[in-house]
């Protein structure tokens, strides 16, 4: 019989596979094991372990780095669902440490202070999969060519304002639609215009979709925000400050989970949106000094 039994770990299929399993779900930012339990109880498909949610990083200022391993391990011990953690852009040693801690996904994230002004992490040698943020299709494809297994919109984390996430999703998905209409000669120009590898552009022209799952992140605060992201074409959502900076996190978390599954059913959305207390207050985009979306190259 051909193909002897031979288990291989860390292949692109295995790394992208976990993102497939997270589709249709909600990944929640948590800063303590107790919050991680609340997230799991509410039906989160994974948690993102970090020291401060983006809203607090904005207020505190200073350099934001990878979380303390003790804190990540505390969260791993508290829940049975996948645990993700953030590394600074370009900080491949933080990523090596996170892999050694057995985290399930690394977010090379613009929410932390970038460690390299020109280079992102070469993600191919890692066994653990990476998710990266993108504001447009060119950025998404550059991250994929570096080995990212999932792309999320950057949005503008910590604001509670969904407008940037919507812009990024529309930009990425809009260009994908246009590429499917392009002829073979025009694909070269698309590659030049997007500063992205031609083979990935050609793949999109053929399949009509991003080569890896596309999730939405940044500024989501309500069940309606989550359903908006899903109707626009995101395949799952990250909710950061939007849950634990709201008045009553547990029911809001649960409602966002229900809304992400039933994103097309307005009567269910109306039901789960009711009586949740105040969402995070938020910061309007025009009030911001630092825009995280500008980080990443």
């Amino acid at each position: 019989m051909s193909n002897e039994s031979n288990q291989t770990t860390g292949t692109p299929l295995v790394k992208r596979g976990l993102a497939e399993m997270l589709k249709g779900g909600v990944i929640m930012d948590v800063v303590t094991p107790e919050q991680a339990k609340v997230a799991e109880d509410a039906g989160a498909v994974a948690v993102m372990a970090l020291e401060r949610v983006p809203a607090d990083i904005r207020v505190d200022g200073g350099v934001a780095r990878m979380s303390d391993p003790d804190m990540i391990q505390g969260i791993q011990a508290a829940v049975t669902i996948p645990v993700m953690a953030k590394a600074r852009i370009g900080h491949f040693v933080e990523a090596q440490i996170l892999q050694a801690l057995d985290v399930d996904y690394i977010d090379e994230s613009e929410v932390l202070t970038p460690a390299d002004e020109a280079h992102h992490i070469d993600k191919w040698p890692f066994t653990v999969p990476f998710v990266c943020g993108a504001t447009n299709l060119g950025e998404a494809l550059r991250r994929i060519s570096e080995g990212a297994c999932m792309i999320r919109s950057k949005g503008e984390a910590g604001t509670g304002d969904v407008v940037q996430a919507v812009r990024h999703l529309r930009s990425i998905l809009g260009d994908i639609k246009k590429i499917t209409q392009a002829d073979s000669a025009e694909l070269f120009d698309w590659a030049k215009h997007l500063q992205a590898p031609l083979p990935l552009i050609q793949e999109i022209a053929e399949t009509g979709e991003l080569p890896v799952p596309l999730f939405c992140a940044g500024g989501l605060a309500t069940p309606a925000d989550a359903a908006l992201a899903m109707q626009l074409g995101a395949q799952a959502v990250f909710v950061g400050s939007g849950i634990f900076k709201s008045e009553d996190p547990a029911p809001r978390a649960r409602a966002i989970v229900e809304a992400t599954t039933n994103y097309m059913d307005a009567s269910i959305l109306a039901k789960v949106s009711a009586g949740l207390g105040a969402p995070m207050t938020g910061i309007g985009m025009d009030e911001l000094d630092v825009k995280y979306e500008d980080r990443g190259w």
Partner: protein
Amino acid sequence: MTIGVLALQGAFRAHREKLDALGASHCEVRVPGDFDRVDALIMPGGESTTMSMLLESSGLFEPIHERLKAGMPVFGTCAGLILLAREIQDGRDDQRSFAALDVAVQRNGYGRQVASFEDHLVVSGVEQRVHSVFIRAPRITSVGEDCDVLARDHRSDPVLVRQGTVMGCAFHPELSEDTAIHRLFLESVA
């Protein structure tokens, strides 16, 4: 004959693409009204705790349970296998399952994501080895007498089981190019 694919969360679209490739008619199931229209059900991979919770809130748990008892063909992959198992180890206390397969499964029994792997397995009734992808996979730790083991992993642990019209596997046939496992299920449905 319509195959429903449970679409509460997880890799349901990948299953629908397999059913397309095999020419089966199919639809997504999110609410009891969807479920009433289907003749068989696939429960995909994803997060079993999330799905278990959404099965309750959607009102799908009881109707699926009833029709499983009445002999409806159901196929569960990974999280779907967990939902079908008699016993869940390392699960949440409030996590419910349909107990349609006489197996005990340990959640994440193969370890965290860095231990996820792919392999080519011998499957009874399939000529070629089957490309199989294990993602934070559940491990089948015991199998009752009435449950047939159709495939085993490199350590000889069962990974594909069948009991009457119900089938479950620890890996993800929806992620590889292979259609053999879906074909096995469709043969049992017909």
